[in-house]
């Protein structure tokens, strides 16, 4: 599909246009954080802690007297870093394993499928909590934990698609012409299964951002003083009634980011191929 047609399809619907705009906005904010943040996110002014929104500090100050707006802006960096890293790792592992399992079948296939059965039977966030609990809370361990549970979806999706594509005539033709397995997979099979993966990755980005916020909220994610939306809410919970702005604004940021990516993912499904809706379940 041509890029122009594709963009037109995404922007043909209100929800997916809003999703695209929100997502681009979030990425821009994260990249331009040092330019647009009014204050240094880690500079403390303890004499003004918990101060509410004012003209100087639009979203107020937190429990250590840091500017909430600046921390939310920098928090976008953390969220996106986790989101993109998890999606990159999980999709790379998942695509590779799914393609190998689907293309070769046999014992490799059985092994990959059985492992994914176990991981799917285990509630995802619980496994992430368990992994972070033993590895220790940190940004990298959150990425590792979320990728460990995240690859399964991609592997299953790609495997299913590969099973279909590998029986097609152009694949048989490539094989008959003497193409090696890795060439057949990389050049002929994968390009034909990549569209649903893009959709899954967009929705996965939202999932990873939400999961990071949840883990950080539980104190198992990003450690202070790094600004994370989830961790900001933990502090907010402690000062409910005293400084409600701490609990309100980071939540709005999380919701807008997640909603934007979900809308965009939904729009992509329609733009790429509505039949993927079934696959994403």
């Amino acid at each position, binding site marked *: 599909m041509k890029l122009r047609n594709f963009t037109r399809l995404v922007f043909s619907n209100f929800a997916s246009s809003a999703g695209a705009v929100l997502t681009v906005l979030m990425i821009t904010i994260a990249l331009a954080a040092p330019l647009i943040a009014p204050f240094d996110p880690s500079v403390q002014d303890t004499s003004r802690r918990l101060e509410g929104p004012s003209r100087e500090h639009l979203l107020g100050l937190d429990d250590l007297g840091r500017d909430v707006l600046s921390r939310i802006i920098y928090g976008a960096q953390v969220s996106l870093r986790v989101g993109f890293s998890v999606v990159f790792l999980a999709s790379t592992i998942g695509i590779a394993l799914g393609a190998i399992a689907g293309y070769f079948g046999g014992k490799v296939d059985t092994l990959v499928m*059985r*492992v994914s*059965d*176990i991981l799917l*039977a*285990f*509630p*995802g*966030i*619980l*496994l992430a*909590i*368990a*992994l972070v*609990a*033993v*590895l*220790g809370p940190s940004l990298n361990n959150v990425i590792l934990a979320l990728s460990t549970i995240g690859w399964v979806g991609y592997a299953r999706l790609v495997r299913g698609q590969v099973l279909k594509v590998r029986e097609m005539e152009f694949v048989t033709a490539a094989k008959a012409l003497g193409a090696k397995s890795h060439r057949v997979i990389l050049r002929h099979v994968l390009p034909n299964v990549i569209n649903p993966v893009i959709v899954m990755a967009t929705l996965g980005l939202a999932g990873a951002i*939400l999961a990071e*916020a*949840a883990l950080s*909220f*539980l*104190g*198992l994610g990003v450690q202070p003083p790094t600004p994370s939306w*989830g961790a900001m*809410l933990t502090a*907010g*919970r402690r000062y*409910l*009634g005293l400084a*409600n702005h701490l*609990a*309100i604004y*980071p*939540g709005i940021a*999380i*919701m807008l980011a*997640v*909603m934007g990516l*979900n809308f965009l993912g939904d729009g992509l499904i329609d733009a790429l191929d509505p039949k993927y809706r079934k696959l994403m379940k």
Partner: protein
Amino acid sequence: MTQYIIRRLIQMIPITLGILTLIFSLIHLIPGDPAVQIAGENARPEDVAQIRKELGLDQPLWKQYVSYLGRLAHGDLGTSFRTGTSVAKEIRERYPATIQLAFGAMLIALVIALPLGIISAIYRNSWIDNVARFFALLGVSMPSFWLGPLLIIAFSIHFTWFPVSGREEGFKSIVLPSLTMGMALAAILTRMIRVSLAEELNQLYVTTAVAKGVSRRKAIFIHALKNALIPVITVLGLQFGSLLTGAIITEQIFSWPGLGRLLIQSITTRDYPQVQASILVIALTYIMINLIADLLYGMVDPRIKYD
């Protein structure tokens, strides 16, 4: 049907074993020497040795695994580092609170979703339908760890109708945590009921019923709704499992003394036997519930054939 149940139960065995293996290996994932990590960097060597012995870390790996499975089979989940008592005891005390919360969340979700979904399906594309759809969108996009504090600000601090945390005040205590946990489910169910009922209302049997003189209300509530609720029941069953994991966050927000809070507390205090046991119990409950939901689906809809 019986054959199907037996087959599903047999399928559960490797998955359960896999989960047990996964949970067993958790302690071995601790970077460095787990015993040193648990005891702390400055611990005396004899304390480290004691922990190593208690965890069986001085045994070969296969022996540890076999004895782990053996102890589980006897219902021995281990001894807590923190309290020195059986971890099973603590879990038994906390388990009912989590189940109670999950049922509360489910009840609230149904109370919200049933009327909203039905009205939305009957008056499609009206303003009330739009409100319901907006609510559904909001419900699935709002993370519980944000919704919870917002509810506390509104109903505990501003209006002082419900307590901020804890479980001491009975019914009053459970309202806000259930609402926090149930909101996402309510949103999902509202969407499902709306779509499902709208589809049924278009079926010929509804038109036939009305043509034969059945009142519209009866046609909707007796004929169409019955069929529309079948997929809803499945989703409800499957979602009950996710409510359990959702409880981990909600219990933390409201200091609800359940299994999820116990898990997070034991992680903070590095009480690994308690961590392992809590995860095991939550995971096993989750897969049991999913199995039951799967089987119930066949009972409510005789059209489903098991092969």
